[in-house]
């Protein structure tokens, strides 16, 4: 695996708590919530209650948690099809996410978008995009608005390692750098594009970080399984963006525990790889971290229980939620609420 510049033990050694207990507990809670909600989504597949495709972030929770915990409420997230984690991390109710995956009327978009397009504008989740790379330029535009209006919010754009090889990545990075836009590009390097190892199709070892210099940006590689490390890197990038310092490109090294999507048993992975990464499971690591900082077991257990209860509640609500009504099929194509292309 890649060299990783920030590791948990360093912080723990001196117990120099730059992050603080409240934030640590929040980082933990977000990770657990993503884990539980996504595992539930997987169970619901098996019951044939989730239709279509679905791309889970199991194993990658620390990235979503670290960036979300460091965000301010007005900041805007731009996600991919693998966007459940980032959507939940912004505080979107579990019910609305699972409802969308189950294509029910209580879903975030009442089933019209589906698992790959989670959007909750009121929480700053400005869409999940399923064309690889498309949202990087879009995030630039949101950042442009902030710059133009003198607003202090930041646009944060999450994507995978494979995305670094498509044209839109390059155009967005250069554009953001030249216009000094308050946008953060977060590459979640989980070592694979769909089924192909990123190393097989990329000319550099770190597909994002090793290209930062091409846009005049510093090289940043973070341990993406360590929520504290991500949180610190995120904080620095937000501060830079809010100070007018322009964009950042942050590569987070991580791993997905399951296949690319629902259809994928992930047989292409070399033996032992999954186990190695599971040993560094971000939630397991973070539970140890909390203990190192003296958080009591029962506090942790209470969070776990609370999250599980909320996931259970949400599941029940979704199971009994109605299907979307047929008449929304032709609604909201245009701003007038309809789809009329003629008079």
């Amino acid at each position, binding site marked *: 695996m890649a060299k990783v510049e920030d590791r948990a033990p360093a912080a723990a050694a001196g117990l120099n708590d730059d992050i603080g207990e409240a934030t640590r507990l929040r980082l933990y809670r977000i990770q657990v919530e993503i884990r539980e909600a996504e595992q539930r989504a997987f169970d619901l597949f098996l019951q044939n209650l989730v239709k279509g495709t679905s791309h889970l972030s199991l194993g990658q929770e620390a990235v979503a948690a670290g960036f979300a915990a460091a965000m301010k409420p007005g900041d805007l997230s731009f996600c991919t099809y693998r966007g459940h984690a980032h959507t939940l991390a912004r505080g979107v109710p579990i019910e609305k996410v699972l409802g969308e995956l189950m294509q029910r009327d209580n879903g975030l978009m009442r089933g019209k978008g589906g698992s790959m397009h989670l959007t909750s504008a009121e929480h700053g989740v400005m869409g999940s995009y399923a064309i690889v790379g498309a949202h990087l*330029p879009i995030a630039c*535009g949101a950042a*442009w608005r902030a710059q*133009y209006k003198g607003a202090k919010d930041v646009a944060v754009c999450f994507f995978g390692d494979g995305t670094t090889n498509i044209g839109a990545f390059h155009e967005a990075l250069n554009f953001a750098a030249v216009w000094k836009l308050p946008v953060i590009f977060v590459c979640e390097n989980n070592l694979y594009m769909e089924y192909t190892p990123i190393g097989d199709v990329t000319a550099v070892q770190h597909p994002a970080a090793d290209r930062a210099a091409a846009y005049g940006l510093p090289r940043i590689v973070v341990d993406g399984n360590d929520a504290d490390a991500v949180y610190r890197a995120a904080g620095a990038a937000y501060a830079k963006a809010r100070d007018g310092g322009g964009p950042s490109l942050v590569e987070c090294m991580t791993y997905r525990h399951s296949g690319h999507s629902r259809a994928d048993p992930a047989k292409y992975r070399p033996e032992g790889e999954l186990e190695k990464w599971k040993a560094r499971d971000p939630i397991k690591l973070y539970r140890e971290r909390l203990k190192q900082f003296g958080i009591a077991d029962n506090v942790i257990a209470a969070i776990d229980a609370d999250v599980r209860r909320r996931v259970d509640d949400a599941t029940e609500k979704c199971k009994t939620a109605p299907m979307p009504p047929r008449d929304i099929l032709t*609604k909201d194509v245009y701003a007038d609420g309809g789809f009329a*292309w003629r008079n």
Partner: protein
Amino acid sequence: MAELTYRDAVARGIAQEMARDPDVVFLGEDIAKAGGVFKATVGLYEQFGPLRVRDTPISEQAILGAAMGAAMTGLKPIAEIMFSDFFAVCFDYIANEFAKSRYMSNGQLKCPLVVRTGNGAGSRFGAQHSQSVENWCMMIPGLKVVAPSNPRDVIGLLAAAVRDPDPVIFFEHKSLYPTKGEVPDGEIVDALGSAKIVRPGKDATLLALALMVPRALAAAETLKSEHGIDCEVVDVRSLVPLDTQTILGSVARTHRLFTVEENPRLCGWGAEIVSIVADEAFYDLDGPPVRITTPHIPLPAADILEDIALPTVERIAERVRKAMQS
């Protein structure tokens, strides 16, 4: 009233909207300091400054993506794609992103933006800089698509496009830039979705768009004076929304339909309209609806070839005459 070129009408239309609304911003390649490669945006940079009129790298995906992100979050961007042929390098934004985000988000996201572009043939630029690609956009649900034929409409439709809450693709015809027309003083704002009968007639309906409008009009004159065929010419102006009322109304009166399309034949806008008329006004028709188009070929560069590729006044008149007299 003043006489204005189509080219200058573009700048006046943009200026009208930028002066009205500080959230209107404008970006594109060479559009700011240089005033645009067609000189259609001269003076805007000086008038509205570098924060509102911005030069970009040669990054069409970034241009349209940035316009979309800005539109989603509160601005009203106008993006220029220099030649409409270049839609092919940023087509994802046109076809998959801003056309669909309102629907996919169940109405949560909006995209009030305008993409302006230089469209069409006549400049001897060859196959990659001369295309008429209105149908590339008409076929995508979620877009609005307009194509003015004269300076007044440039301003009126551009204003309507900027004020519209949906993404609008605005086709300027490169060969019309130097043409002149009378333009009223003061603010001009049209509604999207209305066709205009630019020549009333009783024997046949000729539908035309952009550069084909003056040609259809000239053909109508020939047909009238030389053959006594009295054509109604309709400037379609807006492909989406489409003013089927005006079109069907005209056909109901004339009983014959001809489309005059600059696009290569297959799946052009005329096909769509013929299919609507054939379905809904079948019993109004006294004879087959006929499409007059550029043949289904890439465009040649040579003037002598390009001139015969597009529907000419002669070809239009001859085709209509033949159909009407058979």
